[in-house]
C-alpha cells in the first residue's frame, strides 16, 4: 500500500532556523497529512530545541498544545522514519505565527526515559505524568512522576500494545481482604508526598478532601485542600475517576464504530466531539466533504455549543448559591435538544456525523423550530443578564476571583473561553477555519481581566455569536448531497451495489469490517465547547486506528486549579470550578 502522506509538501521555515541557529542537523522530517512540521530529533537535543522554540524563536511557539506518546512496536507502515519502540510527541502551537510544530523523540526499549520539560512549561507536568502512566516512559527530573489517571496500584501501562484492552483478557476479578487494605491505603492522601507541610508558622493546617463525590466538582473529581481556616494554602487536584480508556478503545473499534465514543468524551458537547474525529479520518482518507454536509455540521455544532454553554451558565449561577437560573436555562436547553432530536433522532449524544458527511439529510421543515428558537433565545439571554450577570452579589463573588493573565494562560496551556477572557482574541474557527467556518460572519468575544466573571461573560456572548452562525446556516443552507460520494465513507454509497460486483464487494467489506483508511498521521483541532479539542490519529492502513490521541481542553484547565485558588477561600474555589466549565469525561477520557 502506498503511504498517503508521501504526497504532502514539507514547510521549511522553522526547520531551517533550527539547523542554522542551533547547529542541529541530525533530525528527520516527517511528512504528515495535516501539514504540521514534524521533526524527529534525539534525546540530547530535546530541551535545546524546545527552549529555542519557546523562548528565542520570534514569534515564539508559546503553547504546549499536547504531549503524548505512541507505542510503535507493532506499526508496519513506518517508511522513512527513524527506528523507534516508543515515540514521544511534543506538539507546540504559536498564536502569532498561527502555525504548529511537532517534535518527536524516538526511544528504544533499552532506555525509556527523557529529560522532563515541566520546568519549561508548567503544563507539561500532568502530560508527562500521563505518558508515564500510560506508556511507562520515565521523565528524569519530574517533581512528582506518579500515576495520574490509572489507580496508584495499577500494574502495567495501558496504552502499550502488549497491555490487554478488555476485561475478558484478564483473570476474573477478585478482591481479597489484604488487597482491599492495600487499595484503601493507596487512596490515603499523604501531604508530605506532595511537598505539603502539616504545620504552618502559627497554625496547623487542615486537609480537606473535596470529592470524588461533591456537588460542586461536576463529576467524579477530587481535590485535596490544604486549609488554614477557610483560606486555601494549596490545592491538589486528583483526576482519573472518570477514566474509561477512550484512547485504548480507539485501537479496538473500527473507524466508523468509534464515532459514538467521541460523543461521550465531552458529554455536554454531543456531536461537536464527532467533528475533529471525522475531519481527521476524512483527511487521512482524502475525502472531500460536500458543502451541505459542512453547513449541517456547523449548525449542529453550534447548537451543541449553545446547549453546553446554557448548562454552564446555569450551574455557574447555582454554584455561587443562586438557586433558580439553572431551571430557566434547562428549559432553553431542552428546546435545543428538541431541535437536535427532530434532526438526528437523539438528544445529548446524537453521533450524527459520519465519515464523509452526516448520518441523515435534514428532515422536511427542519428550519421551523430552529427559526422559532433563534427568535426566542436572545430575549431570554437579556433576561439572564439582568438576573445573573448584573447581580451585585454574584459580581462580588466572581470578579477578581481566580484571575490569570494571558501569559499565564499560555504557560498552562489554557484555551477556549478561559484564554479569551484574558484578552487574547484567538478562536480556532477564525484563525484556522475548518468545515467552512470561513464563510460565516461572527465575532470573537473577549474580556480583559481573565477572572471567573469574565469567563462567564465571554461564554454568554459566545452564545449570541452562535445564534448568529445558526441564523446564517438557516439562510444559506446549500443544496446537494449530505454525504461525499467516496468509497470510504460510512455507511458507504449503496446506489450502485446491485449494478456491479466491485461496488457490492466494496460495500460489503466497508459495512462488515469497516473502511480501510490509508496509513498516515494527522491531527485535527476544533474550537470545542470548552476549548481546543484535537484528535491526533495514526493509521497503519487498517480497519482500526493504530493510535487515537484525544487532546481535550479540560485536562490542562484542571491543572491550573492550584494556581488559581491559592490564597482564596473555599467558596472562591467553588466559583473557580464553576467558571472553568469542565466535565470529568473530557479530562480523563
Amino acid at each position: 500500500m502506498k503511504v498517503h502522506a508521501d504526497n504532502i509538501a514539507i514547510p521549511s521555515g522553522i526547520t531551517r532556523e533550527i539547523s542554522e541557529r542551533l547547529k542541529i542537523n541530525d533530525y528527520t522530517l516527517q511528512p504528515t497529512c495535516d501539514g504540521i512540521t514534524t521533526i524527529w530529533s534525539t534525546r540530547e537535543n530535546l530541551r535545546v530545541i524546545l527552549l529555542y522554540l519557546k523562548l528565542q524563536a520570534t514569534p515564539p511557539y508559546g503553547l504546549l498544545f499536547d504531549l503524548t506518546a505512541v507505542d510503535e512496536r507493532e506499526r508496519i507502515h513506518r517508511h522513512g522514519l527513524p527506528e523507534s519502540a516508543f515515540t514521544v510527541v511534543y506538539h507546540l502551537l504559536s498564536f502569532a505565527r498561527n502555525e504548529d510544530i511537532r517534535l518527536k523523540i524516538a526511544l528504544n526499549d533499552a532506555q525509556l526515559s527523557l529529560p522532563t520539560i515541566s520546568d519549561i512549561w508548567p503544563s507539561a507536568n500532568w502530560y508527562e505524568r500521563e505518558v508515564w502512566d500510560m506508556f511507562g516512559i520515565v521523565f528524569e527530573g519530574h517533581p512528582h512522576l506518579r500515576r495520574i489517571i490509572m489507580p496508584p496500584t495499577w500494574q502495567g501501562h495501558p496504552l502499550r500494545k502488549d497491555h490487554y484492552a478488555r476485561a475478558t483478557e484478564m483473570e476474573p476479578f477478585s478482591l481479597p481482604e489484604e488487597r482491599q487494605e492495600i487499595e484503601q491505603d493507596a487512596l490515603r492522601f499523604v501531604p508530605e508526598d506532595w511537598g505539603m507541610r502539616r504545620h504552618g508558622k502559627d497554625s496547623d493546617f487542615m486537609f480537606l478532601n473535596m470529592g470524588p463525590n461533591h456537588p460542586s466538582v461536576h463529576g467524579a473529581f477530587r481535590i485535596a485542600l490544604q486549609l488554614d481556616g477557610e483560606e486555601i494554602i494549596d490545592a491538589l487536584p486528583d483526576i482519573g475517576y472518570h477514566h474509561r480508556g477512550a484512547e485504548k478503545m480507539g485501537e479496538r473499534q473500527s473507524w466508523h464504530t468509534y464515532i459514538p465514543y467521541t460523543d461521550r468524551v465531552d458529554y455536554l458537547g454531543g456531536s461537536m466531539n464527532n467533528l475533529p474525529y471525522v475531519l481527521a479520518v476524512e483527511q487521512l482518507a482524502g475525502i472531500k466533504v460536500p458543502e451541505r454536509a459542512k453547513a449541517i455540521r456547523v449548525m449542529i455544532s453550534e447548537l451543541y455549543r449553545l446547549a453546553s454553554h446554557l448548562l454552564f451558565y446555569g450551574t455557574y449561577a447555582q454554584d455561587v448559591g443562586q438557586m433558580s437560573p439553572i431551571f430557566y436555562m434547562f428549559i432553553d436547553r431542552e428546546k435545543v435538544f428538541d431541535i437536535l432530536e427532530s434532526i438526528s433522532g437523539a438528544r445529548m449524544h446524537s453521533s450524527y456525523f459520519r465519515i464523509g458527511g452526516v448520518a441523515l439529510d435534514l428532515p422536511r421543515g427542519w428550519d421551523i423550530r430552529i427559526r422559532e428558537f433563534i427568535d426566542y433565545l436572545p430575549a431570554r439571554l437579556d433576561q439572564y443578564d439582568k438576573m445573573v450577570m448584573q447581580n451585585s452579589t454574584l459580581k462580588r463573588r466572581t470578579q477578581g476571583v481566580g484571575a490569570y493573565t494571558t501569559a499565564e494562560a499560555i504557560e498552562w496551556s489554557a484555551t477556549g473561553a478561559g484564554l479569551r477572557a484574558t484578552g487574547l482574541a484567538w478562536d480556532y474557527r477564525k484563525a484556522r477555519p475548518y468545515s467552512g467556518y470561513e464563510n460565516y460572519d461572527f465575532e470573537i468575544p473577549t474580556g480583559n481581566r481573565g477572572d471567573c466573571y469574565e469567563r462567564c461573560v465571554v461564554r454568554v456572548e459566545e452564545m449570541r455569536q452562535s445564534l448568529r452562525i445558526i441564523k446564517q446556516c438557516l439562510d444559506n443552507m446549500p443544496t446537494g448531497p449530505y454525504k461525499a460520494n467516496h468509497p470510504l465513507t460510512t455507511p458507504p454509497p449503496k446506489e450502485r451495489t446491485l449494478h456491479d460486483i466491485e461496488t457490492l464487494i466494496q460495500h460489503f467489506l466497508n459495512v462488515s469490517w469497516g473502511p480501510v483508511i490509508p496509513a498516515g498521521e494527522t491531527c485535527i483541532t476544533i474550537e470545542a465547547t470548552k476549548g481546543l479539542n484535537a484528535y491526533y490519529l495514526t493509521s497503519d492502513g487498517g480497519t482500526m486506528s493504530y493510535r487515537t490521541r484525544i487532546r481535550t481542553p479540560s485536562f490542562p484547565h484542571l491543572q491550573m486549579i492550584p494556581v488559581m485558588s491559592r490564597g482564596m477561600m473555599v467558596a472562591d474555589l467553588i466559583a473557580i470550578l464553576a467558571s472553568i466549565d469542565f466535565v470529568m469525561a473530557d479530562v480523563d477520557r
Partner: protein
Amino acid sequence: MNTGIGDASDIIGILVSVIITAALLIWVERRLLAVWQDRLGPNRVGPMGLMQVVADMIKMFFKEDWIPPFSDKLVFVLAPTIVFITMLTGFAVIPFAPGVGIIDFNFGLLYFLALSSLSVYSIVLAGYASNNKYSLLGGLRAAAQTVSYEVFMGISIMGVVMLSGTFNLREIVEAQRDGWFIIPQFFGFIIFLIAVIAESRRGPLDLPEAEQELVGGFHTEYSGMKFGMFFVGEYVAITLSSAIIVTLFFGGWLGPSWLPPLVWFCLKTAVGIVFFILLRGALPRPRYDQLMTFGWKVLLPAGLLNLLVTGAVVLSLHGT
C-alpha cells in the same frame, strides 16, 4: 405585668398549629419555588401534592437513625433538639391576638433575642459533634455569622423599643395603632430582616449549610428524624421570624375590623414567610468574609445611626 394568658389547651393548640404550619411549609416552599422556577414541584401525593408532607414524615421516621461511630454521640443526639426547642419556646411570647397567646411577658423582645441566640448552639454543637471537616467548617461559619448578626439584630430593633417605650410585645403592637413602625423604622426593618435571615441561616445567607461548598455543612452527617428536626426547626424559625417581624413592624394583629385580629396576624405572617421563600429562590449566596464585612462595616454603622436619629426624634417630640 408578667401574666399567663392561655391555659393548657391554648398552649397545646398553639404548639400543634405551629408544628403543623412548619411541616406544611416544606410543601409550600417546594411548590412555590417550583412555580417561580417554571416547574411543577410535588403534585403527586394527595390533592395538589399536599400529602407529600405526610409521606416525607413517614419516610423520615422510618429511616435508619444512624449515628456515625466517629461522632461525639451524646452531643450529636442532643444538638438537633436544641434548635427545635428554642424556636418552639420562642412562640410563648408571640402576641397572636388580644387574649390569644401563652404569656404576656414584659421582656418578651429580649426573650426572643435570647432564644434566637441560643439556637446557634444547635448548629455549632452539631458541627462539632459530627467530627466531620465539612460539618466543622459549617459550625464555625454558623458561630461567626450568628454572633455577629445578633449584634445588629439587637441594635436594629432598639428604635422600635424607643418609639413604643417597652419591651413587651403586646404593648409594642398596641403602640402601632396610629401607624405601623415600618414607616418610621424602615432602616431598622431592613437591618432586622437581614439579621433575621442570617440568624435563621436561610438562603441566601445559608453559609453554614452551603450545599455547593460544604455539602450540607453542619447537618452533613445527620439522617432520619434527627435531620428532620433541623429541617422542621428551620421552618419553625422562619415562622417565628415572620411573626416577630409582623409584631414589631407591621402592627401585629391590627387591621381593619372586617377580619378578626387573629386572622390578620396569620395573614401577615404568611406573607412574611412567602417573602422569605422568594428571597431564597432569587439571590445568590455571598462569601463568608463578605457577609462579615457587610455586617460590621455597613449594618452596624447603619443600625447605630438609626438608633441615634430615632433617639433624637423621640427626645425632641416627647422630650422633657
